[in-house]
């Protein structure tokens, strides 16, 4: 469905120091530097796959999505989406894709979302019967009934995002590019959005690429992740394997009947968190069984769970590793 080979996107950026003198100097002489937003990444995505793009700010995730959706012309490399070269922006291609950017909107600000839906029906040339069916489905699943006739400016952020998503799906795209779709939403709205996106993928077999700084989004939606850092691909594989690679240790979470001394916990594993009613221990995977047995026999345990390290920590450790490697190379 999506094939990317040695994709590069470099920008020339005008740089000048602050101050009036520098501003005047820049009238006559400008200094440019090349920013390598994406620098030679390759990957393939199969039809119906759900893939998470991860990386720190400025890693090149959004730039890659913009190239894949035809908004940016790449500086080099080859990109194909369902047989189309995105930068040609053929109608057939644009009718197959959608890009939702959490920080940009297509809804008409002073008109109700229903007007944007009608506009998209006309622009995407969606037959009226299909439009009605799709709209009914979206209204039901996203609970939009009360929202679509209010002016967009009067909707809350979460309500607006649901309508944005609906507007982007009126033409039933086969490829969904979602750039921070849940940014700024409260937890329950994030869950609603995630559930809906997953069910759309399952019902229509759509391919999905998601970027998000909320690791819960990635964990819930993307069995596969691609990690991009400084424009280069640093990992491509399952989320599970990534966690195993970066943080092979497991976490044993204990709910305790009463407070225990830290020394007793330290004897079982590395204490990550300890308060009166809870303790979290980090232990090597092979020691989990032993630790659990000893904890149950020696501590006043009410409840016990074994978990992976939180994804946020895994990612932060991964990015720190990459940064350290780059610094070592630079030195």
């Amino acid at each position, binding site marked *: 469905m999506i094939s990317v080979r040695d994709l590069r996107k470099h920008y020339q950026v005008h740089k000048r120091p602050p101050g009036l003198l520098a501003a005047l100097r820049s009238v006559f002489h400008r200094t440019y530097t090349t920013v390598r937003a994406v620098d030679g990444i390759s990957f393939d995505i199969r039809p119906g796959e759900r893939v998470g793009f991860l990386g720190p700010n400025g890693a090149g995730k959004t730039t890659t999505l913009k190239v894949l959706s*035809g*908004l940016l012309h790449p500086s080099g490399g080859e990109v194909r989406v369902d047989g189309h070269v995105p930068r040609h922006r053929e109608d057939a291609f644009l009718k197959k894709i959608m890009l939702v950017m959490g920080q940009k909107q297509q809804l008409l600000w002073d008109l109700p979302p229903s007007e944007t839906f009608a506009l998209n029906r*006309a622009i995407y040339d969606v037959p009226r019967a299909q439009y009605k069916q799709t709209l009914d489905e979206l209204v039901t699943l996203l609970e939009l009934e009360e929202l679509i006739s209010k002016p967009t400016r009067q909707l809350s952020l979460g309500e607006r995002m649901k309508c944005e998503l609906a507007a982007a799906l009126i033409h039933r795209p086969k490829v969904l590019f979602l750039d921070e779709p849940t940014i700024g939403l409260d937890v329950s709205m994030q869950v609603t959005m995630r559930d809906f996106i997953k069910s759309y993928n399952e019902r229509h077999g759509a391919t999905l690429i998601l970027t998000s700084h909320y690791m819960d989004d990635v964990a819930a939606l993307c069995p596969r992740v691609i990690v991009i850092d400084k424009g280069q691909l640093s990992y491509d594989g399952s989320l599970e394997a990534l966690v195993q690679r970066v943080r092979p240790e497991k976490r044993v979470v204990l709910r305790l009947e009463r407070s225990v001394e830290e020394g007793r916990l330290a004897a079982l594993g590395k204490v990550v968190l300890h308060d009166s009613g809870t303790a979290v221990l980090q232990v090597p995977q092979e020691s989990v069984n032993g630790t659990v047995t000893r904890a149950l026999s020696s501590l006043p345990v009410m409840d016990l769970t074994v978990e992976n390290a939180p994804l946020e920590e895994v990612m932060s450790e991964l990015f720190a590793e990459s940064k350290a490697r780059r610094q070592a190379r630079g030195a």
Partner: protein
Amino acid sequence: MSLRGTLRALPTMMRVGLSEGIAYRAEMLIWVLSTTMPFIMMALWTAVAREAPVKGYDSPRLVGYFLAVFVVRQMTGAWAAWQMNYEVKQGTLAMRLLRPISPLWSYATENLGVVPVRLVVVVPVVLLSMYLVGPELAAPRTWWGWVFFLVSLVGGWLISFLANVAIGTMSLYMESSTKLMDVWLALFFVASGYLYPVQSMPEGVQALVGWLPFRYQLGLPVELMTNARDFGEALELLGRQWMWVGLLLALTVVLWKRGLKRFGAYGG
């Protein structure tokens, strides 16, 4: 999008453009107030013409002329250059580019959508003009006069719109192109017949202005609305107007296609 598909989408796009125009009615009325310069010029020039007609323009003709200027300006106004500058800078042009229809069609329908709203102001002014100076100086008096006037009105709008889009597209090449629009507007005020009739200019200046696009944005439709041209002159001037439409269309398409490769789609 194919031409047939575009034509199918246009009625809905126009309807949504009109809905936006109605939503922004207060803003539109403020814009209308900012275009009352023809009334000031009318007062000025009729005072001058009280002494003696100015190159054949006596007071009633000047009243008819400047009321027509107001009407034509309302019907041919466009603001795509500012819209495009904003959208290129903010990166929101991206949302238009994702749709399978050229953003130029969207800008066109949004700019055209407000025309019916402006009729609320235009119709009373036309009626006032008919009452003050009589139908002879307020509206075309022959069938060909009406056809030529309407064609020139479409041509005038197209020149305004395409100039806006060409200049707006320049924001893909430079950091901001709104200053270019200011230069265009300055030339428009001087050479379009907005502040004084083109026919009142010295012969040499008239000849020069006759080859510039500005008078075809406004002056020509006004002259045809007020019956200031005979059939032959009108036909020749319409030819020149549509030549400018063709030139600006070609320029716009070339600038747009090349400019898109430079689009940075900045922001989130």
